[in-house]
């Protein structure tokens, strides 16, 4: 991981394609970007769960999870919610525009270790972004895993990310793909209810299974509770954290949860580790 190059200097990247996942004030826009430098592109090699500092020169950078699997190709994908100064600037970008990228940063989901196991992802809202690379990775290496179950929910159907991809996946009989929205809606014929209750309804067996969850803090809390009720052990449960970050490389100080730097020691933690960090759910 040690690099001789200046880790604060970002790579230039070209936005190849963009589209909105959701609308409204806090819209989520996805960017498909390609690093300009050939060598940087070849050496990038991110793993599912890792993040990157993306930004616009003159505005700043934000740490965003890389929402594609390396199995998808030589490009990167980021799904960004419009929230503050940097994400506003990112949302102005269209195909052909430039952004800056630094990374990949942080640890990753131990997908090698999970070979042979059932993979269960439980996402809520924008929390599906770090789940997506797991889903794509397992799909690409399906024969090496025991199966893939996805639970994904959002407030309304308009708040669901990656909808088209889910439509495709729902047709695939090998995958078990479950969508839910919080309140009933005209034209919605799938599940209505919160993600944690849907998890209980599906009643997955903890046998040889790894559960990964990401979403709003309140959802994570109930999902963890329910996973325990279903008999999952602490080391079968994973989540990914986020905190305010500036450097991404464990120097600037602010992203710590207890003694762990989310940017370097995380963002991926198993529940056994997380339980020992007093600030993890702060």
């Amino acid at each position, binding site marked *: 991981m040690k690099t001789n190059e200046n880790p604060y200097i970002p790579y230039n990247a070209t936005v190849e394609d963009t589209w909105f996942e959701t609308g409204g004030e806090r819209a989520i826009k996805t960017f498909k970007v390609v690093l300009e430098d050939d060598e940087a592109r070849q050496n990038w090699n991110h793993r599912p769960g890792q993040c990157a500092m993306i930004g616009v020169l003159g505005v700043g950078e934000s740490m965003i999870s890389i929402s594609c699997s390396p199995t998808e190709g030589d490009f990167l994908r980021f799904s960004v919610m419009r929230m503050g100064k940097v994400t506003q600037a990112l949302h102005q970008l269209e195909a052909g525009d430039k952004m800056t990228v630094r990374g990949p940063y942080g640890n990753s989901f131990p997908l090698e270790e999970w070979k042979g196991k059932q993979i269960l992802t439980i996402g809520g809202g924008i929390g599906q972004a770090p789940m997506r690379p797991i889903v794509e990775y397992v799909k690409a290496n399906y024969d090496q895993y025991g199966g893939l179950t996805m639970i994904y929910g959002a407030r309304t159907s308009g708040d669901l990310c990656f909808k088209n991809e889910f439509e495709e996946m729902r047709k695939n009989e090998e995958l078990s793909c479950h969508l839910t929205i919080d309140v009933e809606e005209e034209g919605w014929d799938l599940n209505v209810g919160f993600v944690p209750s849907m998890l209980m309804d599906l009643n997955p067996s903890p046998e040889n299974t790894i559960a990964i969850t990401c979403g709003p803090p309140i959802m994570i809390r109930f999902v963890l509770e329910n996973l325990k009720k279903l008999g999952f052990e602490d080391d079968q449960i994973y989540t990914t954290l986020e905190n*305010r970050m500036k*450097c991404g490389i464990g120097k600037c100080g602010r992203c710590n949860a207890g003694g762990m730097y989310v940017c370097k020691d995380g963002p991926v933690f198993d529940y056994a580790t997380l339980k020992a960090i007093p600030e993890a759910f702060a």
Partner: protein
Amino acid sequence: MSAMLLNKEKWPDFVGKLTGKQLWAPQIKDEQLRFAPVAEGEEPALDYKNTRVPPKNVVFPQTETLFRFQVDGEEVDEPKLDEEVVLLGVRPCDARSMVIVDKLFSWDYDDPYYARRRELVTMVGLACSEPGLNCFCPSVGGGPASTEGLDLLMVDLGENYLLEAITEKGEALINETKELLEETRDANLEQKEKVINEAAQKIKRSIDPEGIPVGLPGLWEDSLWQRVSASCLGCGTCTFLCPTCHCFDIQDETEGFESRRCRTWDSCMFEEYTLHTSGHNPRPSRLERTRNRINHKYNYYVDKFDVIACVGCGRCINLCPVNIDIVEILKQVKEAL
């Protein structure tokens, strides 16, 4: 490594020899004693306990350009760092702090700016003969004549300074100024021991850190954090003036068509430091922020880098506007263990 004597009458000549390089020494600037460049002909005085601002800004400037770029440009220019600096009159605690901070700035990723500035600096220390009121360096692994992080140590022997080279850089400095120096005698070394022992005796404050790093996690919900943070104003003085505090913010600045990305000192005592864009703040009040400051220095840093991130310089005690006192906090921690 050699040890030589410098008669104080030759002090101006000694300084004169060094001002050929970029020489930084304690000076009154903006009504405070801080390290600043010494102009030719100027003569820094060494009769101080310690500077208000630690010399960390020489290796970690308060504001530092990471790179420059043109508005709407894609190319970035990194600053060239090649000016050698001699830091003269560094107290042993401040020199030790850099050794401690080195661990963070080289943790997996080398911070190129910090690393380069560290290479370029020669640290000439001055042992303490008159420790300050709130000094407690021996409690945390230092001492009035600790040489950790120094290239050369000076000890005030009255008429003379004893100059001891600690590293090759220090040895080179002695060689460069050899014509001004005299050989030491055994009596000088005895004198040094006496000065240092007397200085150590004058240190009145202390804390026994034994058990604190392992004990702090268990005190997470303890009422002591409420007590010790109740009067905190969140001004950040304790962290800005702390020689081991190293947190920073990164911001882009534009003037005309010229932009730069720069980093500036930041403080974990500020609300904005951890504030998420959503409005959520994982450390929403001064209680959580005070608890984090103490845990970072006396628990997290020990876990990661095997050393307490506090050198006992006493600045945070001396300069806190509401008299929050880290030695008192640590005492309460000990009592609660």
